[in-house]
């Protein structure tokens, strides 16, 4: 099965499980969250924390898909509207909405999600290429998916979410 390029980025950030024997499949340690009905996942290693959504202040002229900023213990945290970035329509906040705070390319950024599901470990072998429409719909932010039971998790490459100009 051909490996998608996105997989390599993930496996670079693996938390490798202790391997007593030689040929053990490497594991992906993932945080699963949902946007609408679809499940997505990011490497746990990039996630600093998950917080409730505090008041988000709009910033005029901020780059596209930055919903605004919020106060994270005294830090002014930019918050990315993942829904619109991934081609969905914006939606109202609910009590289940959360901000996933991640460190991407040395910067700390928050990503707004509809709800956080759980953390899981999956073997590398569960990773497949993402379907074409998922890849293009996300402007290449999703190039791989992982099978978990009967679910297909969309593996999100956070470093591709914000464009290089940011």
């Amino acid at each position, binding site marked *: 099965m051909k490996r998608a390029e996105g997989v390599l980025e993930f496996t670079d950030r693996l938390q490798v499980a202790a391997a007593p024997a030689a040929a053990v499949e490497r594991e992906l340690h993932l945080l699963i969250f949902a946007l609408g009905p679809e499940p997505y996942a990011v490497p746990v290693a990039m996630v600093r924390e998950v917080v409730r959504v505090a008041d988000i*202040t709009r910033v005029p*002229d901020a*780059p596209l898909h930055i919903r605004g900023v919020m*106060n994270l213990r005294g830090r002014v945290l930019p918050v990315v509207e993942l829904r619109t970035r991934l081609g969905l329509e914006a939606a109202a906040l609910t009590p289940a909405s959360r901000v996933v705070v991640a460190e991407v390319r040395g910067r700390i950024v928050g990503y707004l999600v509809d709800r956080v599901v759980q953390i899981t470990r999956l073997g590398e072998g569960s990773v497949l290429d993402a379907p074409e429409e998922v890849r293009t719909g996300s402007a290449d932010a999703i190039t791989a998916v992982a099978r978990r039971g009967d679910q297909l998790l969309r593996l999100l490459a956070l470093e591709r979410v*914000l464009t290089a100009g940011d």
Partner: protein
Amino acid sequence: MTAPDHPFAALLADYVAECLPLAEDVLERSLALERAWAGGEEAADLYGPLQGLLHTIKGNSAMMGLRPAQELAHALEDLAESLATGPARRRDGVEVLVRGTGLLADLVRSAAIGDSPDSAHYLEELRRFLDQTVDLPAEPARVERRGGDRREDADRMVTTVRVESHRLDALLEALGETMIAQAGLRDAVKRVTRGRRGTPEESGLDQAVLALGRTLQQLEQDLMETRLLPIATVFGRFTRLVRDLARGEGKEVRLEAAGGDTRLDKTVIDRMGEPLVHLVTNAIIHGIEPPEQRVELGKPAEAVITLRAAQRGDRVVLTVSDDGRGLDPAKLLHKARALGHAPASGTPALEEIYGFAFLPGLSTAERVSSLSGRGVGLDVVGLSIRSLGGQVSVTSEPGRGTTFTLRLPLTVAVLRSLLVEVDKERYAVPLADIAETLRMGPDVLRQAITQGTLIWRDQVIPVIDASHVLGLEVPWGVPACPEAPTKGRRYCVVLKAATHHRGLLVDSLLGHQEVVVKALDPTLGRPETIAATTILGDGRVACILDAAGIADGAIEARGCG
């Protein structure tokens, strides 16, 4: 470590006893030189004893068969001499010197124990530094190598502690959060004591909270002062830049600097280097004529660029002047009209014309220079300065020269501001950029909307609705084209830039507030209207407006669609 059969091996302890205080004195003097040179002082009197001390340590180490210490002391003598006679290299070199003198002290200290630190690595680095060609003319004064009385200055020296600046930043950040917490406490106390106004409990609580606030402000001021550095640390970079750039452009330019000991917060200094470099680069590339042309015009072939700094109240005023060709107002106006920044008819005031120089697309020369591309647009300079809470303006005498004036706040952390509300969002407007606030009666408001102007203090000033200039979208994700949202705009904040005023229509004024400035996260890019952010007492983030930018018209109203 001296070999055990060395004739003087028995004197190792005496060597350490004699040379360690000398080495520590050398280190202290290097630190003092670092400070003096950073402040633009020559400090020749510090230098002589330093040489003598290093010489003695070298001689003693040589006699004891301690080669590493001997070589290091010798190399440091060379370095100190190189820096004393070559001021251009001091900024980088003094850091190397301080490290080396510290290493020397360690070498001496460990001589008797035999567990010496390695100096080969440092010596290599030092030799590489010394080998770099220095082509600036050496200072004429030849420093005498005399022993002198090494102890005479001991009493006058100030004790210093070296602190990495990121620790100071962390302290300030923590203090900032404490101040936010205090503001929150103040709000909470107000709410809790609502029913008990005038009671002793209420006033006791109130006093305590106010006292806490005052203490924090004093603490902040004291902490901020630890971060104040002389501007000379920035000026020092320019000599070489000017020389290299002028040479590349085929021009002759001399740099003069004054007021280098004026002190600014480290963050401001770190960030103003770039705009200053752009201004100096622009002066050399566009402003200054080639030597032959200057001579024809009756000017000296060598042009002069002057950097000057002075403190005015809570601001520092910096000027970058050149005696070049100056700005041509006619050309500026012509270009501004061509780009649509100025109306086709009528002649704006001269100051306003000069203000056009800071609009995008207005650099007046098209040449590409080999060293720096086109030269950076002045609009970028303006933005950098404004993001520091400062202002920049320019005046010129065509044919005689140009002067840029930068006004920067002394410290960047706390801003006295006016909080305003626009469409349920709060914004902070720096008080320094506000000329006046006005309550708008319905008639005045109507006129302001339809004509876009207001009569204020016998002037006609342009007026703009805050939401127009901020380009806010109403519900998230839905672009809005507000037609007449102005019925709620009851106040006008008259903003001022160096030469302009502009009225900003807002819904309400929420009062004065000292806000802790948080620089814009790079992820937010470069919003046109926002200079920075802050966290208000209730924990919510508010944007700090680039009031000066809005005032001088650099930021226009957004159309719809």
